[in-house]
């Protein structure tokens, strides 16, 4: 057992997988000499050499497509795309090719590929560098999309993703790289496609993934301390496949849900979660499902505007209160009005 950052967990897992399997290699922009824009790959070029840690030109479509082609021949490439915003340049290769090759050719070729890429806003990076477009990939059958929130889950899911024979989009988040957590030494790969209840509760279900799973846990702790609320937290961990059963089981118990997402509201991950709850827990639901998401604007640069556009802890707390008000059984020690 070691306490380490999310960044360190990713780094160590990449290294361990490369040591374990000669077919695993890394490619992406600035991952070698520069050691990665976020230093996930620090030291790996020196250790493994340029054959297995391959710096690429700025050509997301080209090098992502090349990774897919290499995977078709049995290698297990791990692509780093500097931010998820830039993955849009490779959208044709990811959606029209990586996701299609196994099915379109009747199962003759698989694509054991991992695309690691961080989302995240809030650093005044402006409209094109602050998006959370994981939904675009979670929409597509043939892809798997995982979004771990802790260092341990990052390790377990990255192991699973690299050993999986399908293309996996591995969502990271700029705000998570420096977060710390315990990582067991002998952690096995985590099954893709399963959510986890990270906090048991009875009053309401908070659903999050990646960074928002932390926000959910934080709000649950805060409201337990301040108001005695007993909130359950579901960390989705996997966006495709989506573990609908775990979400629904939670809401059948709590009868209310608020979904936290870093993407935009309309058509977002939260919309899918809300539809799932509607289908699976309609009779158990005591209030409409609320979603807390980014304001639907191209994210502005100016700090007050940016802050106003991003979902905050207060936004989540307000949504929890309003949902419990709608339930009509809010039992809060201290009013907020």
């Amino acid at each position, binding site marked *: 057992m070691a306490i380490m950052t999310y960044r360190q967990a990713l780094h160590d897992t990449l290294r361990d997988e490369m040591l374990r399997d000669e077919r695993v290699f890394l490619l992406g922009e600035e991952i070698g000499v520069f050691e990665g824009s976020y230093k996930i790959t620090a030291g790996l070029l020196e250790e493994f050499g340029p054959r297995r840690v391959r710096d690429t030109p700025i050509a997301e479509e080209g090098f992502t*497509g*090349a990774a897919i082609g290499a995977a*078709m021949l049995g290698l297990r490439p791990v692509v780093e795309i500097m931010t998820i915003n830039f993955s849009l340049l490779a959208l044709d290769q990811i959606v*029209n*090719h990586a996701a299609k*090759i196994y099915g379109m050719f009747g199962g003759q070729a*698989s694509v054991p590929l991992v695309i690691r890429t961080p989302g995240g806003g809030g650093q005044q990076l402006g409209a094109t560098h602050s998006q959370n477009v994981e939904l675009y990939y979670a929409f597509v059958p043939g892809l798997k999309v995982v979004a771990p929130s802790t260092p341990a889950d990052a390790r377990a899911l990255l192991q699973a993703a690299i050993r999986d*024979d399908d293309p996996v989009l591995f969502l990271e988040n700029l705000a998570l790289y420096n977060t710390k957590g315990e990582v067991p030494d002998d952690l096995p790969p985590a099954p893709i496609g399963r959510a986890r209840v990270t906090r048991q509760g009875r009053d309401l279900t908070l659903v999050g993934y990646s960074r928002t799973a932390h926000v959910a846990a934080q709000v649950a702790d805060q409201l337990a301390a301040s108001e005695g609320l007993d909130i359950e937290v579901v960390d989705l961990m996997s966006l495709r496949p989506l573990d609908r059963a775990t979400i629904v089981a939670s809401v059948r118990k709590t009868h209310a849900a608020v979904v936290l997402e870093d993407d935009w509201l309309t058509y977002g991950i939260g919309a899918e979660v809300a539809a799932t709850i509607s289908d699976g827990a309609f009779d158990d639901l005591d209030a409409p499902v609320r979603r807390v998401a980014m304001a639907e604007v191209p994210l502005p640069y100016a700090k007050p505007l940016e802050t106003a556009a991003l979902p905050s802890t207060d936004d989540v707390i307000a949504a929890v209160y309003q949902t419990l008000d709608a339930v009509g059984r809010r039992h809060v020690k201290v009013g907020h009005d």
Partner: protein
Amino acid sequence: MSPAARSTRPRAAAGGDATAEHQRLVDFYRRMLLIRRFEERTARAYTQAHIGGYCHLNLGEEAAIVGLLTALEPTDYLFTNYREHGYAVDRGIDPNRVMAELYGRTDGVSKGWGGSMHMFDTAHRLLGGYGIVGGQVPLATGAALAIEYRGGREIVMCTMGDGTTNIGAFHESLNLAALWHLPIVYVIINNRLGMGTTVEASSAEPELFRRGAAYRMASARVDGLDPVAVAAATEIAVASARDGEPYLLEVVSERLRGHSVVDPAKYRTEAEVADLRAHDPVPALAARLVAAGVLSDEQLEEMDRAALRIVEEAAQFAEASASPDVSTLFDYTYATPVDNVGARYPGDPLFPPAPRPEEVES
């Protein structure tokens, strides 16, 4: 196209074995004829509604296909675009299975999942037919990267149409291949039309092979109506790739019909169409073989009957092959099984519906 390219002729088999050269030409002709008859039979099956979707034919491209594939070894890899039936047949895949794919049947090369644009066969190392213009170019580049990674001696051939040379993926791929010294031959089949748009109307450098210069990549242009010239040019390209230097080969070809079976090609003038027919590579090679005294008219007819028998049998085989059972709909979403995958038909609910009120009361 420049007249110079059109006039390219095979090098004389200087001092070589004339009989062997003639046998090679006969082999080329037999293969070209099979592609021709296969595609004509395909067009007929399409108009009879046995084949759905889009259907792009290799009519006019026969000499190019045969010349290109002659230069490959069985262990080399081939990536193509959506106009690939002829490549599949000439690569040695059973025509029955190619036709069965067109019919969408279980015996098809892609088990009925791909159709006309998505032929794939691991054994023959045809790694796809791809329907998105340019989609195959980065993939083929990555296959070459995998070969280089393992230190193999295979090469990759990646064919594409003239229109593909304006796609970003083309340029990104050529740059990567040149930077990394990958064993790949990029082949531009320049039939002078991207659907109905001419090369001159879409490419600022219409001599497409010159684009290799931007990546310091060796390149050449060859007359795609002459299988011998194509084979000779391809051998040079393949040798370069096997030495770890990628190569760009432009094959100036023809498209005898519209972009797809349903395209009447009204954008072509009568004079153009007459010119096309005059340069049709299949009868041209037949005439050459007869003039050289290699084949008689009777032998040509017998070869034609043999080709027709093969494609007719292919159509019958395809017709008799079973359609995929609908229970197999979810068989190929993922290679590694995964929980919560949601194998639901369109009318299925996410969760079992709640019981009706009368059931609850009783």
